[in-house]
């Protein structure tokens, strides 16, 4: 049994991560590693970077092809895709968000890791609406690029 099957939390060991250079252009990290019958991310990718052997296979992102456009973030039914772009000591993280209140650009929000612990502050840089899912880009310290996967917005 994998540890994440007991805890519900992925570690960096479970994920294939891009190189430093690839991170600079912005890369979609697909935190979907089980064989589940689902494939909308493949159709959503404008550069055909995301592929799947069959509908049950976990999606694979070709980091060389991925342009970090964030289209897949709002499409993934499992809310499991995050786009990370690292530049000048800061990380821009684009994540799906389905709670109220919805933050505005320029707001300071709490940055949470995969266990929901507050790891620092995040500055909201972009807010998009894809259907009812908000796709939010935050800026955090570069050190937090791999850990931050959620935000908390105080009412």
């Amino acid at each position, binding site marked *: 049994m994998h540890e994440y099957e007991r805890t519900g939390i992925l570690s960096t060991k479970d994920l294939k991560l891009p190189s430093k250079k690839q991170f600079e252009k912005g890369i979609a990290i697909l935190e979907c590693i089980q064989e*589940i019958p689902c494939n909308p991310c493949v159709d959503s990718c404008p550069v055909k970077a995301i592929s799947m052997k069959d509908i*049950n296979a976990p999606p694979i992102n070709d980091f060389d092809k991925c342009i970090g456009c964030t289209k897949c973030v709002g499409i993934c039914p499992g809310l499991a895709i995050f786009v990370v772009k690292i530049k000048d000591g800061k990380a821009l993280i684009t994540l799906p968000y389905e709670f109220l209140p919805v933050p505005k650009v320029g707001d300071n929000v709490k940055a949470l890791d995969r266990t929901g612990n507050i790891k620092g502050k995040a500055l909201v840089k972009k807010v998009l609406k894809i259907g009812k899912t908000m796709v939010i880009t935050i800026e955090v310290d570069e050190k937090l690029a791999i850990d931050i996967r959620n935000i908390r917005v105080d009412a």
Partner: protein
Amino acid sequence: MILHSGVGSILRIKKHPIIDFKSQKKISFYFNNKKLDGFEGDTIASALHAAGVKILTTSLKYNRPRGFFCGIGKCSSCLIRVNDVPNVRTCIAPLMEDINVKMQNKLPDLPDAEFKCSAKQTIEVDILVVGAGPAGLCAAIEGAKQGAKMLLVDENQCVGGQLVKQTHKFFGSKNERAGTRGIEIAKELENELKEFEKSNKIKLMLDSTVIGYYEGDEKKQHKFGVVKRENYESKLYELNCKAVVFACGAMENMLLFPGNDLPGVYGAGAVQTLMNVYGVKPGERVIMIGAGNVGLIVSYQLLQAGIAVDRVVEAAPNIGGYHVHAAKLRRCGVPIQTSHSIKEVYGDEKVKGAVVVKLDQNWQPIKGSEEKVSCDTVCLAVGLTPSIRLLSQMGVYLEFITEAGGYVALHDNFMQTSVKGVYVAGDSSGIEEASTAMIEGKIAGLSAAILLGHKKNQNLLKQYVNELDQLRAGPFGEKPRIAKEKITKLMEKRHARI
């Protein structure tokens, strides 16, 4: 018992990130002679819950307080007396102006008023579909597309079955409307249905129950009794059809522990209905029992409705649902405790808290590991049991298939049971996902139409069967795959014996 106006109740969800709750007309009604308020669109149970009434009935022997459990009209834990009519299921009965709702004292009294029973009417159709959830809707639409005259019967006020509370985006491929939320799929299917209603290819009977199977007047004909409810009174219909598709869904399982009957212990699906359909919070703090997809998804939806989820407790050593659903909860700070179980629920008349206990490798409670957890709601997401009572009454071959969730009707790959012209689809043919239920519905509707002499569309049938196989090909499809293999094998065996 604290009673307050159900309209301005703190339990009413005002804002929601996914659902637009439209403001409805206020409705007044009487509960045990006290005037309360609810909204148009409420059921009696949702209006009572919002008004702070959690106790709906008492147990027969010990007078223990009982609330609702399944929330979808499948169990008997919310029966109440409305306008002198006993045993009304409050969870599916619509709230109406000035109705007189009274708790039943143990067993119901016979109604004082004259029992109204109008002369029965007869309906003739080609194919009857029982249940208008994802499977039933798809069966009716598919049959109508082939040219058969369809009748779709459902117990609820609207079509969609359990889709109407699924606010999350569905998985699958384009064919299964992946990426679309269940609530939107329900609307899409309803719109398709309306087109066929306009052209008289499908007749829809809501708020109606198929109560039993009777001997047909002619060969190749099935006769059913259908009761349609109007203003809490019933009207009887005789229904003759050449084929029937049972898409009756499933019921949530109960778990054994002291206090499991206290108001506040609900099925996870019941809570999902209450908050996502009627906009009423079950409580303020919830413990979820079961980390399968239902437990994980409903926990996330509780958070979206502004309700605290203390933890998810799972007896197995691993999380049963998809990791992506678990991850969504975890990053909101909700702990998932695997190898843990619920020992008991405590409180007088309503839930005050629960005792959670750690389990050893043999799933036995570890002494001294008990932890008291304060909460006002306990949700049980511990599996479902297929609804098969009508099939059982008809005498189709049933078998207990663990992987299917209990007793199911044996059926072949084209969803026909051991009785010719009788089909099953969806959860009542074995517990699975809504996406597979929709395909099974299409197969059943198409097969039934072919039996009746409509165009033998083998390619389409093959395409649907392939789609099903694909969805079940992965590790999460293993259980239904085994279930269906057992079911079709047993079916072949029974046929060989005859």
